[in-house]
């Protein structure tokens, strides 16, 4: 079945550094991948998404890279700030006809030190 995994459960960086969070998926390619940020006591918050026909997409301080050959997804955060400290999840949509059925990875805890 489909699964989404993360290489590292925790990541610590200094304020101002760039952060890279990785995600690997198995089985067939999803049509769609999303990165979510979840702060303590809150629901996941959408960061950025990418469709399978793209390799790269940029947002404000964030970039998502998709490598379908090795089934790997990464989230890059530029100039990381203390407010970026949270758990980051990648998710894929393998729903096919069940549009919107997301499978989430376990999450990476990002800690930003001032």
């Amino acid at each position, binding site marked *: 079945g489909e699964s*989404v995994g993360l290489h590292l459960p925790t990541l610590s960086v200094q304020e101002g550094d760039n952060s890279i969070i990785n995600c690997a998926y198995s089985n067939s390619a999803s049509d*769609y991948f*999303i990165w979510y940020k979840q702060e303590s*006591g*809150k*629901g*996941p*918050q*959408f960061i950025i*998404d990418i469709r399978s026909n793209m390799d790269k997409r940029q947002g404000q301080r964030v970039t998502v890279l998709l490598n379908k050959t090795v089934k790997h997804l990464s989230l890059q955060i530029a100039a990381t700030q203390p407010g970026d400290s949270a758990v980051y*999840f990648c*998710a894929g*949509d393998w*729903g096919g006809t*069940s*549009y*919107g*059925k*997301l*499978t*989430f*990875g*376990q*999450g990476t805890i990002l800690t930003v030190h001032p």
Partner: protein
Amino acid sequence: EAGVAQSPRYKIIEKRQSVAFWCNPISGHATLYWYQQILGQGPKLLIQFQNNGVVDDSQLPKDRFSAERLKGVDSTLKIQPAKLEDSAVYLCASSSLAGGNEQYFGPGTRLTVT
């Protein structure tokens, strides 16, 4: 624009008791999702509604979990009887057909079963 509302925020019950959670999605969002998030894991989809019809409930433990969305707006998720392993955060999310895959999450209900 108001976000997804959920209540209660916290609930503690004993095993074998029943519990219900309520969700009010973002106004106009046709699709509503219930997720279960066990501590240290990513959210897992339980059920997806399109208006008041079920799109996917393949991961809903139907012997004890039930959900409804009678008028295509608010939704309730019920557990009866609860087990210890049901302790988790229950997240509700909604999305609009025009908005594509982007799902907006509520703050969740933290359930503790003792």
